[in-house]
């Protein structure tokens, strides 16, 4: 592009996991002294692409050229040798080693200890980061850990450096210093991929921007040609590919007459501050935002998994702040956790046992197996769950059907309010519209639903009202008539300024 030497060229990279296409033919190249910002919503394929670039994943098809040569057998070791290094968003340090040991371990070069120290010190001086190399990694704050990861990358004489949301836990001043280092690396000819959600930063440091959406590059070019609005536009779906033929009539609840089912008042806790919102009967309310914005933390504080610092949660006018999970369930709250495999299902046991896990509490002492089967049958037919036998293990089901089993489990407790955290993640398109139908059906039956989703199109599609969470704060509420993809997107990226 600028006549600089080409460092890496990815051509038509495709990658899918379990028939789920994540990258649908991505081409990307980086030359010396370029800083390319990669922007995309959650699930756009950014991290998969970067993992392919660093040899962690093998692409299904497409070619990788490094320094003009096609690389055949590629793995993380080769990537290190060729000078490609990824600074992960979540630091992977060895907690019980010192910073120095962390910097040294796995270093490809035969660097002497004293040289390593000197080099690290020099880098830290430039960055004005003051870290004692003898400190244990476990004693570092998250920002410091990230600094170590960045230094680790810089120590390696990299040619291509990938920074995955490096500023997500740095302060403003620390960020500025990092940017100065990036400028310097740029001047030295290093190519940098910069993954971020913060659009301001994109304009501040990058030379180019690439927008990934749904496994494809939708926008690519010199940063000087773009404005913020153009970037937002690039993130939006093209009308024709909107989710299916599904239509949802948005509802406006008469909020003057009715009491809200759930009231959250000034709730603050780890990862969120001063959150207030309401959910009314028969309403689907969305909590929009990006991963890490604090939505799950809010939900967990409401549900009783964690304790908030201050604020109030009322369910049907009753104060349920700081109750235990069991007590909030008794009060009529239900929560479908975001990571189904990690928190949602009991994988190696039967479908029945999964459906009844919460209602067996009502049994006196011995289990009522007959009732368990009846209840399971009821929900299997109600939610049209495709199963062969109730006694089959739940992991034999598809993701969508697993999720329906989880929904059955919480419906069986007859809740007042259902919090759904990313209910359609990792689910194919058909099952997805099934879940949407179920949400609609539940709403019509009078359930109140709080929907957390990073899929902004999904949230735009099915929510009657949307609150946007941006970096732990809730400043935007979109009413039914304000909801459109652009506004939701802007709100999630913290750039919505009202109508």
């Amino acid at each position, binding site marked *: 592009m600028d006549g600089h030497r080409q460092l890496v060229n990815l051509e038509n990279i495709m990658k899918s996991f379990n028939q789920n296409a994540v990258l649908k033919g991505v081409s990307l190249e980086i030359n010396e002294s370029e800083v390319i910002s990669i922007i995309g919503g959650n699930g756009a394929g950014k991290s998969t692409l970067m993992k392919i670039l660093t040899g962690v994943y093998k692409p299904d098809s497409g070619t990788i050229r490094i320094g003009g040569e096609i690389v055949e057998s590629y793995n*993380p*070791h080769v990537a*290190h040798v060729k000078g490609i290094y990824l600074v992960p968003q979540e630091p*992977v*340090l*060895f*907690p*019980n*080693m*010192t910073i120095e*040991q962390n910097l*040294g*371990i*796995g270093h490809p070069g035969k660097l002497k200890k004293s040289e390593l120290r000197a080099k690290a010190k020099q880098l830290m001086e430039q960055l004005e980061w003051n870290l004692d190399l*003898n*400190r*244990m990694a*476990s*004693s570092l*704050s*998250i*920002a410091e850990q990230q600094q170590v990861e960045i230094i680790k990358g810089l120590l390696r004489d990299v040619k291509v450096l990938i920074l995955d949301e490096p500023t*997500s*836990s*740095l302060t403003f001043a620390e960020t500025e210093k990092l940017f100065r280092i990036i400028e310097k690396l740029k001047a030295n000819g290093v190519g940098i991929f910069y993954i971020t959600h913060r659009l301001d930063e994109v304009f501040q440091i990058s030379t180019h921007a690439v927008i990934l959406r749904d496994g494809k590059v939708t926008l690519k070019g010199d940063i000087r040609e773009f404005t913020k609005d153009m970037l937002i536009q690039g993130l939006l779906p093209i009308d024709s590919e909107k989710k299916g033929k599904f239509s949802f009539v948005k509802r406006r609840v008469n909020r003057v007459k009715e009491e809200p089912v759930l009231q959250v008042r000034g709730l603050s806790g*780890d*990862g*969120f*501050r001063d959150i207030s919102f309401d959910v009314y009967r028969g309403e689907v309310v969305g909590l929009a935002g990006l991963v*890490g*914005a*604090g939505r799950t*933390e809010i939900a967990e504080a409401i549900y009783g998994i964690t304790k908030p610092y201050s604020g109030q949660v009322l369910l049907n006018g009753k104060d349920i702040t700081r109750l235990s999970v069991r007590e909030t369930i008794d009060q009529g709250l239900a929560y479908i956790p975001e990571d189904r495999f990690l928190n949602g299902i009991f994988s190696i046991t039967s479908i029945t046992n999964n459906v009844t896990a919460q209602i067996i509490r009502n049994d006196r002492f011995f289990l009522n197996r007959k009732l368990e089967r009846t209840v399971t049958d009821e929900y299997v037919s109600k939610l049209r769950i495709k199963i062969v036998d109730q006694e089959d293990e739940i992991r034999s089901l598809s993701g969508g059907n697993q999720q329906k089993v989880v929904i059955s489990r919480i419906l069986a407790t007859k809740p007042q309010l259902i919090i759904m955290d990313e209910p359609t993640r990792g689910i194919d398109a058909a099952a997805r519209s099934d879940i949407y139908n179920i949400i609609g059906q539940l709403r019509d039956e009078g359930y109140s639903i709080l929907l957390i989703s990073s899929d902004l199109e999904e949230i735009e599609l099915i929510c009657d009202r949307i609150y946007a969470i*941006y*970096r*732990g*704060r809730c400043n935007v509420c979109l009413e039914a008539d304000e909801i459109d993809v652009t506004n939701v997107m802007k709100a999630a990226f*913290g750039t919505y300024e009202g109508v």
Partner: protein
Amino acid sequence: MSRMSQISVSVFHFLRKHREFRTFGFLIALFVIVGIFNASYLTPDNMENSVRSSVVYIIMATGMTFVLLTGNIDISVGGVLGLSAAVSATIVRNGGSIVTAFVAVIVIGLIIGLLNGLGVSVLKIQSFILTLGMNEVLRVVQVIFQGGRNVEGLPTSFQRITQHEILGVSTLSIVVILLVIGIHLFLSMNRKGRYFAAIGDKEEGAVLAGIPVKRYKIYAFMMSSVCAAIAGLIFASRIGNNIPTTAGLGYEMTVIAACVLGGVSLAGGVGSVLGATIGAIFMTSISSALVFLKVDAFWKDVISGSLLILIVVFDMLLIHRNNQKAKKQRLNARVLEIRKEM
């Protein structure tokens, strides 16, 4: 005031990083307390004796540390010790040289370690269960090997290797301590030596850093078994004659306890052979201290058992607190600060 607290904080950090010093503190406390009641406990002779009588445990604890660092456990060391004691004693009795016995013992250790290591790293069997079964098998193999009888009629030359002294100090103790220091330096300073701790510290990180995880786990088990095998030879030489079929029975638990007392974490990633050594000396010193205090010996297991539990519980509370703090920081770092508040 703040200076004081600063110092205490840095002392705290130092102790966290060098957990072996904590055990060393226990050891000194033990000596001082016992010394107050009975000054003869503090004689150099007695101290030398403490080390001398813990040599078998020191060697085993050193090997065990490798396994524990990778986050695994090796219960089979008692069985390895017994078998190698039986084999080496039999070789010497039948006229073989001590060198032959030594080589045989090393081979036994290597083979058993390889089997354990392959089972754990390749077949992914829980090390506890696998080595527990292995221990039982080795015990019986030892009984069969000895024909159910004690190994008798050993030449006195066999005892000499552990009795040799330089200036009144056991040569064996000196050699073992020097070796421990060497291994300590290897594990803490050498690039590859640190791989063991890295694997137990964060296995995914070790994989990302390009460490051959499986191979190093196998090395760790081999190291543990070889050490136990050498300990077996020394054990046999110490006894000198009439090696019983129960040689080394229950040693595995004492050795693991010594390691934990010495600051080696059973969760992996933390600890040093120096700490394990101090732990081993501490374990044997408790027995001798009770003798000097004229306290009955039956207090020993209660003391070491409750100390063990106290230490792991204390460590866990500390780790828990740190994790909570880290999580809090991580979440709150993301929050957009509207007002610049301190």
